[in-house]
């Protein structure tokens, strides 16, 4: 499929390097994907895989502590290298973030309503305070808060975790963003509340056609959410494609190993097929294919050459020479 330059979000060869006085650490090492209008893209990975850093690099939330490379465009407009004021009008407007921890995202000293009003005013959605206040209450009702007036007058600590995350989502969608980035939006919540929040995100997406980039470590969440999925390992995408296909018929040995390691209730018990070792820590990614030291199918060459992400089936790509020769006759 040709990737048109007017996609709401196009990420090309994104690299993120954290720099300190003593050393620099590559965390994201060349990630590319396209998010189309109304589409969902999941970044799935374990800790240290660079999934959250990828999402936050798109919004350039690391400031001077990180060096970004490659390109991130929204509707064809390059975001990397934008000035602070340009970025400020973009963030919360065209692109909004739902963070993992709603408590840290809200100002503890200001009422929920005031925090919503501020966003609406800053981005010029509502220019007067009373209008913004009315809109704030509408937004709170829209995200399923039963008594929006009371919640608007509440401080964050007066709300439960689930309600706080709803309030954060209300802020995130307040300016009708074209791209919504959800960074593990339900990880801090209990499963029954998680189900509510995921449902809410789907509902809002269907209503507005927002493109959603969601970061998760939870295969179950990725499976339920659908859309496209990008599996990350050691700062790179190792596999990409439609979620149902990737999770139903994984091509990369890491994806296959991760799925096999999950306990599947209702199926015969016994040993889980674990992957040997642990994900490499950031800053100590192995040379060659980073997964090779844990890979049951690794060849000697895997420890030297890092395979690129190539097409292995229609609409699917993987970064592994083993799958490319066994299943990917189409491989470029």
């Amino acid at each position: 499929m040709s990737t048109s330059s007017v996609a709401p979000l196009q990420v090309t060869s994104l690299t993120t390097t954290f720099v300190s006085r003593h050393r620099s650490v590559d965390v994201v090492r060349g990630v590319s994907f396209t998010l189309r209008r109304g589409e969902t893209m999941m970044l799935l990975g374990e800790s240290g895989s660079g999934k959250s850093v990828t999402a936050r690099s798109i919004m350039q939330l690391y400031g001077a502590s990180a060096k970004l490379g490659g390109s991130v465009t929204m509707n064809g407009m390059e975001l990397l290298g934008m000035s602070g004021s340009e970025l400020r009008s973009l963030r919360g407007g065209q692109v909004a973030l739902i963070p993992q921890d709603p408590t840290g995202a809200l100002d503890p000293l200001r009422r929920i309503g005031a925090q919503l009003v501020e966003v609406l005013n800053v981005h010029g959605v509502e220019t007067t305070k009373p209008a913004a206040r009315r809109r704030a209450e509408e937004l709170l009702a829209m995200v399923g808060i039963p008594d929006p007036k009371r919640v608007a007058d509440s401080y964050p600590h007066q709300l439960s975790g689930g309600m706080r995350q709803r309030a954060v989502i209300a802020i995130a969608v307040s300016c009708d963003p074209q791209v919504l980035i959800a960074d593990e939006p339900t990880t801090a919540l209990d499963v029954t509340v998680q189900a509510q929040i995921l449902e809410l995100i789907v509902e809002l997406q269907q209503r507005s056609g927002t493109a959603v980039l969601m970061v998760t470590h939870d295969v179950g969440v990725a499976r339920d959410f659908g859309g496209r999925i990008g599996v990350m390992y050691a700062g790179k995408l190792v596999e990409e494609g439609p979620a149902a296909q990737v999770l139903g018929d994984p091509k990369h040995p890491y994806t296959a190993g991760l799925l096999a390691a999950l306990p599947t209730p209702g199926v015969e018990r016994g040993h889980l097929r674990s992957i040997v070792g642990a994900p490499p820590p950031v800053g100590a990614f192995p040379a060659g294919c980073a997964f090779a030291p844990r890979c049951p199918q690794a060849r000697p060459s895997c420890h030297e050459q890092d395979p690129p992400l190539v097409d292995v089936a229609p609409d699917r790509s993987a970064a592994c020479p083993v799958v490319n020769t066994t299943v990917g006759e189409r491989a470029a």
Partner: protein
Amino acid sequence: MSALLEATGLNKTFGNGVRAVADVSLTVNRGETLGVVGESGCGKSTTGKILLGLLAPDSGDVTFDGESIPAMNRTQLRALRARLQVVPQNPQTSLNPRLTVRSSIEFNLRAHGVARAERGPRVLALLDRVGLTAAQSERFPHELSGGQLQRVAIARALSTSPDLVVCDEAVSALDKSVQAQVLNLLADLQHETGVAFLFISHDLAVVEHISDRVAVMYLGRVVEVASAERLWDAPQHPYTTALLSATPGQGRERIVLHGELPSPADPPSGCGFRTRCPVAEDVCAGEWPALIPVAPAHAAACVHVKTPATTG
């Protein structure tokens, strides 16, 4: 199978009015794994602490091998701890950061009166069993990964050959690919030593995988107990059903519960689940229903469940 640990009618209310545990009765048999599952604030960890003798219940009793834990004095508790160990959620904070992992385990052996000459070889054998090398035994906790630390915590817990190990969210902090290794290790160790586990977790898929029987808790109470297979295939309590359906990626029809867990300091009258229950009726506001048998080795606490006539 005989009962190793029996808790009857446990109650615990904290000073801030939170009724964390209410009328909880549980049995762990020798060599089995009892899973305890529930969302945050359901009282599962408080129950674990009471069972470990780390927290005194307001009322109710816990017997370990026939002896009452709350009635024990310090000397007796100390002796008990060799047989009743714990693997906590976060090994980063449960291991002394200034001791090598070998010293941490030796410390445990010394506390339980193992002779000095015997300690060294035993530590190495234990670490070897959980998959760590002799070189790793000289490392400090900050030099090891989360999965390795959890192996150390398991080795330490098993060092005194306990009869029961309470695993409180023992694999929750681990990456999935590492979690599988630790779950396999626990299963192997149980097979080899006959140790029983009380496995506390919020993750139903993990609990179902590792447990023989599972107790589901809500607002401080056990609302359903059954074998893992039965709970998964034929849940009886509406909360269990909703919890199963909310576990992502199972392809079950999703029952989205409205609202959130009520505060344990101010629970609703009657059945605590009625405010979120899709099948609640007026009668549910009366009293919290008792846990009644619905099938052999399967009990649930809901007015909608019936005891089959045949089982009386």
